[in-house]
């Protein structure tokens, strides 16, 4: 396969986009709505532990992707089985982002448009981006993430006239198990999904800067998400938890001198770009992963059929948004825990055991 290179700064931006992705429009942990902005900060801290765990794996096998590490640690057969499990994880992440954005567009903007008319152009664009390669995705992402970050920071000034700090009180009026459960949930989704970035790390041109790049990426994404939730809560107060897409509704509230009103489409378009990047990265990782599992020299031809699979899974992901919210609340943390923590931890443990066993055999 052609060796594509990205800089640590581009990796930071990719981590930011991947984390912000679909969570920005459909946040999880809505039962802790008023304290969500604080819980995001706690979850960010917890996710850094997960990230360092994955980075430890990368440091042990420098220049190897997650799938290559699986083959080294477990051998070719079991290693490929583990990689196939992760393929499903990446497929579901991509399909989830696609399904969430389509639901948002379908319920708020294009209410009479058929699903497929929204999904097909999206998938075509994503397949095109994936075929161009990681360098192009990373370069496209730079202005898009800067625009998103700029917009979120600008929002502080746009809502100054409608925000009330009393809406933020009381702090942490929740039972401890609820706080811990939501912290774990958010540390796994969206932060824990960054385990997918392990597939991109060998392509960073300065590997010694990878740790710092990921650290800043998670920190910046967490800071932006927390700021946005802080603003949304300060505008809506407790009523915000009634909305399915609180960010979208939050931008609808902006009203500056009866001139700047109904601005929600601008941030919506902006946040859609984050969805594009997230799905594009998932598709790229799926294509490169498939190529590694089957020992292929090129991955580009696989982009289209894998794009069709993302489309299919997105269509068959959930029948209604209420079921999706139930899934996020109940099953998603376990699903995320398995892929973002348990499997990397198992791989690390087995790698240590095999490493020490090999050393004993040599001595």
């Amino acid at each position: 396969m052609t060796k594509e290179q990205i800089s640590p700064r581009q990796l930071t931006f990719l981590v930011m986009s991947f984390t912000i992705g679909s969570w920005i429009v459909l946040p999880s942990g809505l039962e802790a709505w008023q304290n969500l902005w604080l819980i995001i900060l706690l979850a960010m801290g917890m996710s850094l532990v997960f990230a360092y765990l994955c980075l430890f794996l990368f440091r042990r096998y420098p220049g190897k992707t997650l799938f290559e590490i699986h083959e080294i640690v477990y051998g070719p057969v079991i290693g490929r089985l583990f990689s196939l499990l992760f393929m499903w994880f990446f497929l579901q992440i991509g399909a989830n982002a696609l399904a969430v954005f389509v639901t948002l567009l379908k319920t708020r903007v294009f209410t009479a448009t058929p699903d497929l008319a929204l999904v097909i152009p999206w998938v075509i664009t994503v397949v095109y981006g994936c075929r161009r390669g990681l360098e192009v995705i990373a370069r496209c992402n730079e202005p898009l993430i800067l625009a998103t970050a700029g917009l979120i920071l600008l929002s502080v000034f746009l809502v100054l006239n409608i925000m009330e700090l009393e809406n933020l009180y009381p702090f942490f009026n929740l039972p401890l198990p609820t706080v811990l459960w939501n912290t774990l949930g958010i540390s796994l989704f969206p932060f824990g999904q960054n385990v997918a970035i392990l597939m991109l790390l060998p392509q960073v041109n300065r590997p010694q800067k990878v740790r710092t790049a990921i650290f800043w990426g998670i920190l910046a994404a967490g800071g932006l998400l927390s700021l946005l939730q802080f603003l949304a809560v300060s505008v809506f107060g407790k009523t915000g938890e009634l909305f399915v897409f609180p960010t979208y509704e939050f931008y609808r509230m902006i009203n500056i001198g009866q001139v700047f009103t109904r601005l929600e489409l601008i941030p919506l378009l902006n946040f859609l770009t984050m969805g594009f990047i997230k799905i594009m990265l998932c598709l790229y990782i799926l294509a490169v992963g498939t190529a590694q599992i089957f020992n292929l020299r090129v991955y580009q031809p696989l982009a289209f059929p894998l794009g069709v699979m993302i489309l299919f899974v997105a269509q068959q992901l959930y029948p209604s948004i209420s079921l999706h919210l139930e899934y996020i609340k109940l099953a998603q943390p376990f699903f995320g825990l398995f892929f973002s923590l348990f499997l990397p931890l198992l791989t690390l443990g087995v790698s240590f055991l095999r490493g020490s066993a090999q050393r004993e055999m040599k001595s």
Partner: protein
Amino acid sequence: MIILLVLIFLGLFLYEARGLVAGEYWRELAVFTLLMLLGLFLSILLASEVDLPYVESIWLDLYTGLREGLVPGA
């Protein structure tokens, strides 16, 4: 609709396969063909509006089943 789908997949397959054959990428061609057939099959299922289970419903059922098994009456 199904005929249109088959034609689109066939067109894309021929476009991509030409390059793979010219470069003697046989292994890549085999995997690509397999994935294209799978993609075509899934697209036909979607187009025919076949009633299929939803992914998150399956996970939720699994979660409920496990919870019932581990903590009866929860």
